[in-house]
């Protein structure tokens, strides 16, 4: 393996609550994602996959273990510079955009926070990069469709030029016809910007489309890691993964093997 690891997660544990009511949401999870790679975390809801993402982007600040992002250890209380390295796209584009902000204001806000100039030009470029007409700049989120909103959310995540993009079920709230557009957009942006993706999904078809390696999570633990070829062949080591594959096998096989 020539590429250096961009994300190293070693023995990560997160628990919510205190004492006997304590729930271990993530329990001893370890994996590595290489620079420029697209890595998928799959599992049913409650398996802890979204919690791993929230730890990595600094939203979940109570955790144990060792995490390295872009060569530097993940701080427990991230400072502002940290967020220039990693950004996230949320699941629901209807809830992730401020309802009273125009698209322009939404995209300018991260630039204002970090004191970055040339905002007009950068907003313009970000909209073009995600395939949105610059005429959308002064619209409000409620004037956009779900797919358009998710494009804005992607543009917002990329406007700070992060090296790692965390994707939390980025297509599951969208119409099927729009899902493919967004997945292709994400694949193109990764190629163009040399981004590293960590994608969380319960949809194996989405993961198979975008990722080269996959980790399966169950009950807060990482059950198995496998390549996308293994996934397509259905050659999994554990029963749980085989069940997952069987549950959605039609979709994976129907999906043509696109090189992303």
């Amino acid at each position: 393996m020539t590429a250096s690891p961009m994300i190293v997660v070693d023995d990560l544990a997160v628990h919510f609550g205190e004492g006997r009511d304590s729930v271990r949401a993530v329990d001893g999870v370890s994996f590595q994602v290489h620079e420029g790679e697209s890595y998928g975390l799959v599992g049913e809801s409650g398996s802890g996959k979204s919690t791993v993402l929230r730890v990595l982007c600094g939203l979940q600040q109570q955790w144990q273990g060792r995490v390295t992002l872009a060569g530097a250890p993940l701080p427990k209380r991230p400072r502002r510079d940290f967020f220039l390295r990693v950004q996230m796209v949320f699941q629901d584009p209807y809830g992730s955009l401020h309802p009273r902000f125009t698209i322009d204001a939404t995209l300018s806000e991260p630039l204002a926070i970090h004191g970055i100039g040339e905002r007009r030009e950068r907003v313009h470029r970000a909209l073009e990069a995600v395939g949105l007409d610059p005429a959308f700049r002064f619209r409000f989120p409620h004037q956009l469709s779900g797919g358009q909103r998710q494009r804005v959310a992607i543009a917002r995540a990329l406007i700070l030029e992060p090296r790692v993009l965390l994707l939390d079920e980025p297509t599951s709230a969208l119409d099927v016809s729009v899902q493919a557009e967004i997945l292709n957009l994400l694949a193109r942006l990764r190629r163009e910007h040399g981004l590293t993706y960590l994608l969380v999904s319960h949809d194996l078809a989405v993961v198979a489309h975008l990722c080269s390696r996959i980790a399966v999570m169950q009950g807060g633990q990482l059950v198995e890691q496998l390549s996308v070829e293994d996934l397509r062949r259905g050659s999994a080591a554990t029963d749980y993964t085989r069940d997952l594959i069987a549950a959605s096998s039609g979709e994976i096989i129907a999906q043509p093997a696109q090189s992303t």
Partner: protein
Amino acid sequence: MSETLSTAGWRAWLLSERPQSALQARLGQAWLSWNAFQRNRLAMLGLALILLLVLVAAFAPWISPYEPNVQNLRLRLQPPGAAHWLGTDELGRDILSRIIHGARITLYIVTLVVVIAAPIGLLVGTVAGYFGGWVDAVLMRLTDIFLAFPRLILALAFVAALGPGIDNAVIAIAITAWPAYARVARAETLTLRRSDFIAAVRIQGAGAFRIIGRHIMPLCLPSVIVRVTLDMAGIILTAAGLGFLGLGAQPPAPEWGAMISTGRAYLLDQWWVATIPGLAICLVSLGFNLLGDGLRDLLDPKRRGG
């Protein structure tokens, strides 16, 4: 013809699907809201009453037929008639002129109370709601203390401590008014702080006060504005109550509550002395309530589509 054309041009500009600037986008949204508001007849009536109050207060010296404080004991307690449309009081002062000048006092009290109480309530509520934990506990127990007393009683206590007068009445009412706004703002903040768009701005690196000031407060503002508008009637009544008890505006200021208080002695034989200022209070309170109801229908996120 050209006029209708230019009106259509304005409408098209306001409702453009491709606004060219943030200002145009905001004005377009405001225009849509105004259109929705206009359809509510009662709210428009409320707005008209409030506009009337503002205009009367603004032009009081020019539209009042007499000086409000000039006494004429030969003409005391005149019934409504041609010379004095709403009659005269026990010192022969023209009641219409006093009502008109009293509008200024009412507007002054209401405006000052809102300017003081609404920002305090908004700030306390959003800070408590956003940070949670012990910050929330301390700030909310503080508001509970203020909410535990009836407003007029608390205002009476403060005025008694500070001394009678309009300015002290304003301070006292403002001190008793903010907890309600803090509650409203906190409730809104609690639902907002877990939302994805707040998480998104957090992982852009925004500090807590930027998030509260720029992202949360604008969304709490509509409910606070509605609450404030509906509270206006209560504020006016509290001010009138303090005036009635002699703790608000001092004579000879034509404050409506104080006018009712002096008219009380003549209520059976000279009904207009107390009734006219009572009607004025009633109309203005009604106006604010209708306006507040209309604003609530307009701004309530549960009723607003997409």
